[in-house]
């Protein structure tokens, strides 16, 4: 039988090695490239009938007052543009027609310069086919609430697991182990996105937060399956040491873990390859999250239970600090 549990310190090391690049990237500002939902601003998609060069579009935007505009080609003659928040869209007077907002001015200017703008079917519409704008007050709130949602999800799940596993000794440890495994996945994903932001200009938006929360759900789902087996085995064979019990449980659930992850990964890859561009950031999060979620339930959550039971951490401290240890206990 393969001894998963005996190599736990190796897995911790592996996790650390995978986490370190992301954490370093998170420490170097800009931590994460915020999307408009988190930093305010406007994004829009313009599709031109004629060939337009990215740099021409950029210089034209700078000329009409948006030197900060970021232009990204998404497909043939279709561009995703991000600027600071475009104003003047809502200050309509009490009577009479509303004056053209900054958006309309921009549309007119780009059509004058580059020719007709078209929709997805190729019809001339001369307006942006996708447009989103978020003001600073709203983006601040979204940021706070996102952080709150992630923390709330973690706490709710910690409490739920502690309750669901109340029949085994130290149920709280299960909750903590699952939470650490989940945080492992969250940090890894944020690190990955920090790197993506720096390399591919990938932005963090509400879709990313949705993906992150889904991964939390999935990771816990996966951890519970392994913990459930540990719960069952510890009840069936109460005399077995936890070390062996956890190892058996991992071996027994391994087939299921791999097969489930494979099916979800297959589904996500299919969506990634064929589905729309809009949910791509979400799907990338899901793809990484499913893999790390499966890994963390086997190699982090379950191992922490053993580490805790066998007192690895105090032992490590005693080994590293042999002389100071008594002084600490005296103080």
């Amino acid at each position, binding site marked *: 039988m393969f001894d998963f549990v005996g190599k736990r310190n190796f897995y911790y090391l592996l996790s650390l090695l995978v986490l370190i690049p992301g954490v370093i990237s998170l420490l170097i500002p800009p931590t994460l490239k915020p999307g408009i939902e988190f930093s305010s601003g406007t994004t829009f998609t313009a599709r031109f009938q004629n060939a337009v060069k990215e740099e021409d579009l950029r210089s034209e935007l700078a000329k009409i007052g948006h030197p900060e505009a970021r232009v990204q080609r998404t497909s043939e003659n279709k561009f995703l543009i991000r600027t600071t928040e475009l104003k003047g869209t809502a200050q309509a007077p009490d009577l009479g027609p509303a004056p053209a907002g900054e958006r309309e001015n921009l549309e007119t200017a780009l059509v004058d310069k580059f020719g007709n703008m078209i929709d997805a079917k190729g019809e001339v519409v001369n307006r942006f086919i996708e447009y989103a704008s978020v003001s600073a007050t709203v983006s601040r709130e979204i940021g706070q609430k996102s952080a709150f949602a992630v923390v709330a999800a973690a706490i709710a799940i910690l409490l739920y697991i502690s309750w669901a596993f109340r029949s085994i000794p130290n149920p709280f440890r299960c909750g903590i182990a699952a939470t650490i495994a989940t945080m492992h996945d969250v940090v890894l994903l944020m690190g990955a996105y920090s790197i993506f932001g720096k390399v591919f200009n990938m932005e963090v938006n509400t879709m990313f937060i949705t993906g992150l929360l*889904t991964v939390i759900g999935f990771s816990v789902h996966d951890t519970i399956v392994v913990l459930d087996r540990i719960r069952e085995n510890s009840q069936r064979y109460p005399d077995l040491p936890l070390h062996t019990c956890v190892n058996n449980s991992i071996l027994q659930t391994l087939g299921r873990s791999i097969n489930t992850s494979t099916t979800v990964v297959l589904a996500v890859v299919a969506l990634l390859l064929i*589905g729309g561009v809009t949910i791509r950031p979400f799907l990338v999060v899901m793809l990484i999250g499913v893999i790390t979620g499966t890994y963390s339930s086997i190699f982090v959550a379950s191992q922490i239970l053993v580490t805790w039971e066998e007192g690895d951490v105090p032992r490590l401290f005693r080994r590293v600090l042999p002389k100071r240890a008594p002084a600490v206990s005296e103080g």
Partner: protein
Amino acid sequence: MHRRTDRILLVFIVVLTAFSLVTMWPSEPWRYLPKFIPWPEGQGIKIPFFKMNGATIEGSTLERRAMRLGLDLRGGTRLVLEADTSGQSDVDVNKALDNAINIIERRVNAFGVSESEIQRQGSNRIAVQLPGITASDAIKKIGKTALLEFREFQRDAEGNVAVYQNGEVTFVPNPSLEDAVWVPSRAIGSDGLEKELTGRYLTDAFPGSDAAGLPTVDFRFNSEGARLFEQISGRLIGQPLAFFLDGEPIRNKDGRIEAPTVQAVIKDKGQITGMNTSEVDYLVKLLRAGAMPVPLKVVQQEDVDATLGEDSVQKSVIAGEVAMLIIGLFMVLHYRLPGVLASLALFVYTTVVLAVFKLWPVTLTLAGIAAFVLSVGMAVDANILIFERMKEELRIGRSLVVAVEEGFARAWSSIRDSNVSTLITCAILFWFGDQFGASLVKGFALTLAVGVIISLFSAILVTRTFLRIVIGIPWARRAGLWGSDLPGRGAIAEREVSGVSTGGGR
């Protein structure tokens, strides 16, 4: 054994699937399915039902033709408007926002937008969703503040009233209210300037009754409004005075322009007579709406072109179909006969979920489609958990019948606990989305939750019934059909249940 119950359940599943399939079948199937087969067009579904209306029971029908799609899939505009209370410390934001919502609803209805949504969001915001409308149209129509005006006939020097008919303005002595040209009533204010009397000078409007006990609308002006109204009413005795909201005359329930004749000089308070109670309530609501203007500004805006959405729907549905085929193939190759049953269960699951989405109706968004695919993954996971458990039972020499039952019994606790944790995440996501009106996130959470709940039903009922029925068929008991890595030689012996100990510390 449960032979009889299983057969009844199977019939139930078949009927449910057939019903769901008819319900969810798309009206344009060729967009999502291979074109070389002439698929029948979906006709939607009509479900007659009875509802209590007071003491009588009357028939009604629930009709659904198409899935309800979110803005990202069908195109349209979403706006978040914030009440701008700067410099107006005495404004009751709560009341002002409720009124603003009434006004926006009225304007949107005038637009004729179907399935629009107008919601209060947080303490000082309103979220508006308008399918199929471009942003500039939407903002022009709803972005401005409601304006109540008092208008009178436009008259020439001889006192004849201007009438607009067939594109020409003529002057006649006694026009109909409909044809007359109405101009805002003006008077000299306390600062010596001529100004229009508008709703900003109203302090309140409420239902009342006159000396004869007939319902009236009573209203009050502030001092400046009273000064203006005194001059105007004095000038207009014996003439009609109309109320205009956003440039449109206020009409009573019969559709006639509401233009009472001025009876006397009025200062700070006035009374409008000649209406029934419901008309009074309606006018009071409108007057209050006009009387409580609160400037709204757009703090968040999103709009998607309809053509882009159409493209996304097709792509996502096809991606979903491919994903399902791959999952089915994987299950069949890996688990053999149980895999075939799981794929069938997956088919049942998909049709039921889509039918529920259509009937509820759940607004489908791109994120919702992703959630649906994820819930498929979780539904499959339940099957995988059960099959892996069954295999374990078979390996230690249990009979097929026992292995199926034990596989279910033992997998259940992990299926239950893991799905509950997903539902908890869904609840938090829903709250998160609700906080700032992100229909994308809310749609995702709702779709995932519906999917997870139905996947529990599918694992427990559908897969189990299929397995129980199949193990009753002799040829299906061949070991080779139950998993590639079993040490099976020929048929797995079906031992009597009573002869097998459930074993292992139980």
